[in-house]
C-alpha cells in the first residue's frame, strides 16, 4: 500500500459570504494510497464533504494543491475536471441521486454511455445484488436498493477511486450494512481506492485508515490494525 493515489498540500476552502469568511477546509495535508479504504469522520460542517468534492473534481480549492497520481488537479480547467471525473472517479451520495425517470439499468447506463472502458450495466447491477430488479424505476425500489443502484452506477466505469458521501446516511441499520458490504466487496475485489464519509463512528472500524475532521482540519489519523467486516458493525 505504498502507491499514492491522492495527495493534498495545505488545501484550503473559504466561503466568502460578504462580511464573514467561513473556512470549510483550513490547510489539509493528506495522502491516500492505492486500494485503501478510508473513512473520513467528523461532525457536520467539519469539511469532509468539501474535501471529497475537491478530490472528486467537483470543486476547486481556494488555496493549496491537490494531485491525483501524477496529475495536479489544483488549477485544472472545467473541461479537464470533467474528463478526470468521467475516466477515474465514481461517486455515491447520501440521497442516491438517481434520475427518477430512468430505470435502474438506465441509471447505470448514464455512466456506461460516456465512460471509456465500462462494464455492462447488468454486470454492475449483478455485483450489487440487483440482477433481478434492473428494470425497476427508483420509485419502485427501497432506499437500500436505490443506494445499491447508485453504487452500481459508480463502479460500472471501473473507477480507480470511489468517493462515497454518507452512503448509509439515509438508510436504516440493516440496509446500511448491506450497502457497506457491497462497498467492502468492491474494494476487496477490484482494489478500488475508496473514501467513505460518515458521521457514524461505528463505520470507521471497517476502514484501513480513519481521518478525524474538526473545523476544517484533520484532528487525528488512525490506522486500524484489525478491520471489522460490515456484518460485525452495528449501530
Amino acid at each position, binding site marked *: 500500500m505504498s502507491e499514492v493515489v491522492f495527495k493534498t498540500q495545505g488545501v484550503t476552502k473559504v466561503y466568502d459570504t460578504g462580511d464573514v469568511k467561513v473556512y470549510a477546509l483550513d490547510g489539509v495535508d493528506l495522502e491516500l494510497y492505492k486500494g485503501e479504504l478510508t473513512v473520513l469522520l467528523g461532525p457536520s460542517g467539519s469539511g469532509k464533504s468539501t474535501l471529497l468534492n475537491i478530490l472528486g473534481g*467537483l470543486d476547486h480549492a481556494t488555496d493549496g494543491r491537490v494531485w491525483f497520481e501524477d496529475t495536479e488537479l489544483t488549477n485544472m480547467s472545467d473541461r479537464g475536471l470533467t474528463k478526470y471525473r468521467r475516466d477515474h472517479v465514481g461517486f455515491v451520495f447520501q440521497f442516491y441521486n438517481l434520475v427518477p425517470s430512468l430505470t435502474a439499468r*438506465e441509471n447505470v447506463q*448514464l455512466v456506461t454511455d460516456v465512460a471509456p472502458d465500462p462494464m455492462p450495466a447488468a454486470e454492475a447491477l449483478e455485483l450489487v445484488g440487483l440482477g433481478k430488479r434492473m428494470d425497476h424505476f427508483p420509485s419502485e425500489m427501497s432506499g437500500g436498493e436505490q443506494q445499491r443502484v447508485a453504487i452500481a452506477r459508480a463502479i460500472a466505469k471501473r473507477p480507480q477511486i470511489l468517493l462515497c458521501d454518507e452512503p448509509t446516511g439515509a438508510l436504516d441499520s440493516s440496509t446500511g450494512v448491506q450497502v457497506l458490504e457491497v462497498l467492502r466487496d468492491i474494494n476487496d475485489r477490484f482494489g478500488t481506492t475508496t473514501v467513505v464519509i460518515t458521521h457514524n463512528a461505528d463505520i470507521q472500524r471497517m476502514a484501513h485508515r480513519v481521518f478525524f475532521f474538526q473545523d476544517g482540519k484533520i484532528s487525528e489519523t488512525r490506522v486500524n490494525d484489525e478491520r471489522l467486516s460490515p456484518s460485525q458493525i452495528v449501530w
Partner: protein
Amino acid sequence: MQAIDRKLLRDFKRLWMQALAIAMVLACGVAILLTAVGLYDSLSETRAAYYERNRFADVFAHATRAPLSVLPEISQIDGVLSHEARITGDAILDIPGRTRTAVGQILSYPETDDPVLNVPMLVQGRFPDPGTPSEVVVNAPFAEANGFALGDTFDANLKGQKRTLTIVGTALSPEFVYTIGPGAMMPDDTAFGIIWMPERTAAAAFDMTGAFNDLSVSVAVGMPTEPVIDAIDDVLENYGGLGAYDRKTHQSDAFLDAELNQLKGMAAVLPPIFFAISGFLVSMVMGRIIALERSEIGLLKAIGYSNFEICLHYLMLAGLIALVGVLLGWGAGTWLARSTASQYAEFFNFPYVIFNVSYWVYAVAGLAGLATTSLGAAHSALQAARLAPAIAMQPPAPPRFRRSFVDDVMMRLRLTQPTIMILRSLLRWPLRSLLTSVGLGMAVASVIASLFINDSLDEIVDLAFFQSNRQDAMLLFADDIPETALEDIRNLPGVLQAESQQFHAAILRSGHRSKRVAIEARRPGTDLSRALDVNQKPLTVPPGGILLSERLAARLDVQPGETVQVEFLTGRRETFEVKVTDLAEQHLGLGAYMDFEYINQLFRQAPRLSTANVTLDTLQIDALHQAIKDIPLLTGIIEMNVNRRSFQETIEENIVVMNTIYIAIAILITVGVTYNAARIQLSERARELASLRILGFGKGEVSYILVGELMLIALIAQPIGWVAGAWIAQAMSSAFTSDLYAIPLVLKPATFAVASLIVLSAAFASAMLVRRRLDRLNLVAVMKTRE
C-alpha cells in the same frame, strides 16, 4: 439509445400536457405564417398565371366614341405590343322569373379573330356565332347565381332597344376576377353580369359601327406604362377619352392587391407574437425544470457529462416541444391554406387555383419555431451548464424575501396570511409575474384586435348607408341627361322623392401628387345623398370650391384652404384651380364633391344629371322595376338596402370566421400561459401548500393561494391587453386601409369587456385544472421529498 436520451424522452412524456400547451401556441404561429404566406404565394401565382395565359392587358382606356382609324396610331406608340379595341356599355336586364332588374356590362366579342387581350376563358358552351346577333356568353358566376343553363334567354334594354339574348356559353375573364357592378359595394352575381356579344350586334346597339369606346393595350416587358398612358390620352383626347390607366388602378386588380397586402400584413404581424409567447413559455417551464433537476444536473456533471452535453440535453427538450408545435403547425397550416385558397378562388372568380406553398415557407416557419423555443430555453440550459457540480448537489437556498414598504402596507391592510403569500410571491419574482401578465395580455389583445372590426363595420354601414346615402335607390344613366327629366323620374311608380347628381371623371393634382377620381356634384341642401364632416354634420361646397374626403386629401397632401388642380376628363377636358373648402368623413372610396351649379357653369351646359337619387314606396318596388325595364338611356338601378345587405352579409361571414379564429387563438394562449404558470407554481410550492394542509388549512383555502395568484396576474394582464389590443387594432386599421376603403378605429368599452371576460374565464378554467392536482396531493409523500 443513450440513457440520457431516454431520460429526455421520459421527461418529455411526463411534461406532455405542458409541452402540448406550448406546442399549440407555437403551432398557431407556424400555421398562420404558413397560411398567410402560402395564400399570398398561391394567389399571386394564380393571378400571374391567369393574367399571362389569358393575356390580361397592361393599360386600359375608355372614350365616348373613337373611330377605328386611330388604332394604327395606338399600335405605333413606343412600347405597345398589342391592342384590343372593344365596344362596351351597360344595360338593364330583365331576367325571367325575377321581378328586380339586373345590370349587365356588354362587351363586344371579335367576329373574325380570337380576342388578342383579356381573353375570356370558356367554362361551358361556345362563343357566340357572329351570324346570330342574339347569341351571347355570360360570366359563369352570373349564370350560376341566376340559375341559367345554356340555351336560356333574358331581355336586355340596349339603349332603349329591347333585345332577347340567348346564352350559348359561360366564361371567366382576368378582367373580372373581382366583379362589382356600378355603384355597388360588394360583388352581387345575381344583380350584375358580364355579357360578351358579337361585335356587330354591340356596335349596332351602342351606335358604334366603325368605332370603339374601350381600349386595352399590352406593353413590352420592362417598359414603363406612364409614357404609353400619356400617348393614348393624346390619341383619344378628341374622342372623349376618359384617361388611360394601368393595372394598379384597374378595379378588379386593385381589390386583389388590397387582399394580398392584407395577407402580407397578417404574415408580418401575427406569427411573431405567437413565437414570442411560446419562447417565453418555454423559458418559464425550462427554468422550473432546471430548478427541479438541480441535483440531477450535479450528478450528471459528477459522473463526467460535459457542460456542452448538459446544455444540449435541455435544449433538446425545448427542441422536442418545438418539433411537436412545428409539426402541428405545418399540418394545420397546410389544411388552412388549402381550404382558404379554394374559398378565395370562389370569392374571386379564378378559373383555377395554383396551390403552392413552397418548401422554404415550411422551412422558415419550422426554423422560426425552433429558434424561438431554443432562445427561450437557452438561458435555462446555459444556467444548467454553468451550475457548479458541488453546488448543484446541495439543495438550493430558500428564496430570499426581504421586508419592504409593501409589507407595511400589507400589515396595515390586515391582509390574511394566504393573501400576503400571494402578494409576496408576485413581488419576489416581478419579472416572471410581469411576463406572464404580458402573455395573457396578448390573448386579450388578440380578441380586441378581431372584435373591434365588428364595430368598425357598423360605423362604415351607418355612415355610408344611414347618414351619407339615405336614398332608397340610385337610377344610373349611360350619358348625362337634362335635369328636367327629374320630373319624369318623380312620376315613375313608387318614387316619392328624387334628387339629381352628376359624376365627372377627373384627375386631381397637387404638386407631384395626383389621383384619378369621380367628382360628385349635387345641389346645395340636397337631403338624400350628403357629404358629412367628422361630427356627421352635412357639408355644403361653395361655388369655386371642392370638398375632399380625408383619405383623398391625405393622398394629395392638401389641407383646407389650399388649392388643387382639377383636370376634367369629360366635357371640354378643361383644367381648373379649385380651393379645398373642407374635409369629409368617408370610409368607402375616395370622394370629391363640387357645387352642382358651379360645375354646370364650368361645363357651360344647362343643368344635367348622371344619376337620380330617389326614395321609394316599398310597396311599389315591383312596379318600378317593371317600368324601368323599358326606359331608354337608363343603365341601372342600385337599391341601397340590397347593396347594404350584400355588403353586410359578405363581410359578416368573413368576420364570424375571423372572430372565431382569434378567440380560439386567445383561449389557446391563455391556457398555454396559465396552465404552465399554475403547474410551475404547484411544483415550486407543493411542500409549502402541503405544510399548510397539515397545519389545518382546507383544500379551498390552500387552492386560494394558487388560483388567487394566477387570477391576480390575469387581472394585471387586462390593462396591458387593452393597451396592446388598441395598439394592434390601430395598426390593423391603418394596414387595411387602401384607396378602396378604410377600416375606422372604433373601440367600444363592450369590446374590451368581452375580451377580458373570455381571457379571465379561460384563465380560471386552466387554473382549476391544476387545482384538481393540488387537491389530490399526497401530503406525506410531498413532505418526505427532498427539496
